[in-house]
């Protein structure tokens, strides 16, 4: 999947397994939330794993497809809505969060899940995140963090580590990367988690909690871009530095959350959860005040 191709970038002719994949899904009875369109991601892309985990978690909820809305930005991740049997808004680059918030605020009866890449969400769309979070709009935002611009073929993203060589940084990326989880916490999201596409047994329960959370839930999923990142978030590298949050971890302590988020070890799990009035709760209050 690519927005462009250049003569010097030829793709290998590989078996992608998507047909098999869809068949598995059909057999598993999860089809309610999978459309007939086959994902067009590269074989091996972490996005297949995320899709599985999300489909599993959604299946357990009691939402009818016509009350479910997927909103996405532009990027490989952005294609997600085409592959699901639900309403979908494949928006423009970086604007999935405000579009999704608009859907939810206009009709609070809908379930809204926003998906998008790291460039989409932290680069061009980075200005919207803090605000949707502080409004605590009751949507779930799944950030597909592959540390690279996939669709445009391998440029630096806001989460690409320093020194990594990419299309736009042939001498190495000079910019310190952002960590999405740290940002989520500093914006005081009422739910912040980190998961990994390669580890579904951990990811599915995180998704489940995120969907169930009332308020803005922010899930950052590390996911390998097998085509354009051979050095950073690879299946290989992820085996080492990736640990579940300790058993006695207190997900109600924001400073603790910050400490673990900023740590050199890549902890995963739910970093922070807090129940506070959602945008909709405030709205109800405003309406009452207005009417009296």
């Amino acid at each position: 999947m690519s927005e462009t191709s250049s003569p010097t970038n030829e793709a290998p002719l590989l078996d992608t397994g998507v047909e098999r994949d869809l068949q598995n899904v059909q057999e598993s009875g999860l089809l309610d939330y999978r459309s007939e369109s086959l994902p067009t991601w590269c074989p091996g892309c972490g996005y297949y794993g995320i899709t599985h985990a999300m489909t599993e978690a959604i299946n357990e909820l009691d939402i009818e497809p016509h009350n479910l809305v997927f909103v996405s930005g532009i990027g490989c991740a952005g294609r997600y809505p085409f592959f699901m049997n639900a309403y979908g808004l494949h928006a423009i680059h970086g604007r999935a969060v405000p579009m999704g918030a608009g859907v939810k605020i206009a009709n609070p009866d809908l379930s809204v899940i926003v998906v998008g890449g790291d460039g989409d969400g932290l680069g061009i769309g980075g200005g919207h995140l803090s605000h949707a979070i502080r409004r605590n709009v009751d949507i779930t935002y799944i950030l597909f963090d592959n540390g690279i611009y996939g669709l445009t073929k391998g440029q630096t993203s806001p989460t690409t580590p320093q020194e990594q060589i990419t299309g736009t940084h042939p001498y190495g990326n000079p910019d310190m990367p952002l960590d999405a989880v740290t940002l989520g916490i500093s914006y005081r999201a009422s739910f912040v988690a980190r998961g990994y596409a390669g580890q579904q047994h951990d990811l599915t329960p995180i998704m489940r909690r995120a969907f169930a959370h009332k308020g803005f839930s922010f899930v950052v999923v590390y996911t390998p871009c097998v085509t354009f990142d051979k050095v950073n978030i690879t299946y290989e590298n992820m085996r080492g530095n990736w640990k579940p949050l300790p058993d006695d971890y207190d997900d109600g302590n924001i400073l603790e959350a910050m400490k673990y988020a900023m740590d050199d070890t890549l902890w995963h799990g739910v970093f922070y959860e807090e129940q506070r009035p959602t945008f909709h709760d405030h709205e109800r209050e405003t309406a009452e005040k207005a009417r009296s």
Partner: protein
Amino acid sequence: MSVKTDNASRDVVIAVCGAAGDGSIAAGQILNMAATTMGYHVMNFDSFPAEIRGFGKSVAHSRISRDKALTPGTMVNCLVALDDPHSITELHSLTQDGVVIYDSKPADYHEEDQAVAGWIQPGMIGYGAPLRDLSAQATKSSKSRNIVALGVISYVFGFEPGAFHEAIHRRWSGKSESLREMNVEAFNLGYEYAEANIDKVDPIDFKNITEGHVTDANIVSGNEAAAKACLDANLRLYVGYPITPATKIMEILAKQLPKQGGVVVQSEDEISAICHVIGGGFAGKRSCTATSGPGVCLMTEALNLAVMAEVPCVLINAQRGGPSTGLPTKTEQSDLNLAIYGASGESPRAVLAPANVGECYQITRKAFEVADGFQTPVIVLMDFFLSNRMEDVRWQAEDPGTWGTYEDVLAEPSEEEYKRFAFTESGISPRSYPGMQDLQHPITGLEHTEDSLPAYSGENHTRMMAKRQRKLDKLAREWPGPEVVGPEGDLDVGIISWGSTVGAGKNAIKQLQAKTDARIGGLFPRLVWPLQTDAITEFAGRCEHLVVAETNYTGQFANLVQQVTLREVTRVAEAAARPLPTQIIVDRVQDLL
């Protein structure tokens, strides 16, 4: 007291001039209310300093007339001088035999040549009254001399004092009874002083022109009218970001919309605002934002998505002077090109332009119907002049039905394969939105097939471009033809203007018809995009000369007219930080005759 009288003045402009803080704007407001109560129409356009702290000149400018005025007018029949030095610089706009009401005992610190009284020349009529003294007498401060002046006016021009008393109470309805009473007292002192001391020599004379007080008139600004339109259109979601001169719309809706179940969000920027709105439109709810030029720039990318994905939504652009941050507090009609062409690729959308405050209501209301009916973003082009000028509006007369009715085409839940973007003759495909059963689909800013999957074939692209265009062609056919005025048959000069300049255009026709034998007519579209080409061409065909008048530098609408009529047009276009004066059009037409 409330007898209909026929020899009352027909059309008078009163300007109250002071420094910021002198209360000229408040005086104007009270005057407007009183005049409306007595049955008159008012049109009001204030000018005030751009800085809060400003020591600048504030002028409340009220046109009071028996027939609805088309423009606020540039000449003044009566100038009320609350600050002498500032008022001296306003004397040039006084009509022949115009009246100056001045403080006969101005503050001591005025230099001799800074007293307005010293500048009253033959051809002007001066009435002095000790405004400061009387003010101090009533309120122990010089601050109420604006109200004292209203008392003088009331007596001299025959305004009913009761209408003023009422207006004073209305104006300060939130304040204490004693404050209101003190102001009534100030008013009365002015009235009594004038009754006892002033020899009336001017011809201005107001009498009640309706029986009983008028109670169905509201004096509202264009912003207020647009906000009310949103409320009456059952807006569900307003998302906005403050910007002059659109902020007021948001502030009103923030107060009112929650009362009827709608939601107002202040977003972090204009991009977010329009994205929320598109989300709301996609969700099947009426959604709207208002902004001004710089904000529109930021919205162009998302607006383009709404065109491509056929999402209904409404964007009000209260234009201001540009380019860039430009002149935030000055009027200009210079965002027409941006409204029509501000998109990458070709992106047909509807652009509507109200001509007066009443139409800010009607057209904005209609915009929601057009958005739904044609599944498209609709831009309403207001401007600083429309946003901030005030007119008396009688809501029950403001029937938006005038502008056609449009159907919202929704899909039926069905067994068959639903195609969100099915090719149809009209270009309009039955819409579904989240919550509607069995009609799930994705929408996208990528070019797509009938069933909304990305598609890059030339054939599909061409058909989809045509489909989107057909919708707009249909709108051009179904929207009522542009207003055409003047005699039938051949015309010496045809005047075209749009938006806030329609008033000046019509006014020019009136004045020219009165002055000359020439056959003068006009064409005044409210739908400025898509163009109603046939009507424009037909009208142009009747005209010896074609004049297009608008408040911008390059003649943006003139360019469009020239493009479709293949005729050289005479441009009356200025970007001079003010509404286009009628006189400029009149002069230009007379040059042509």
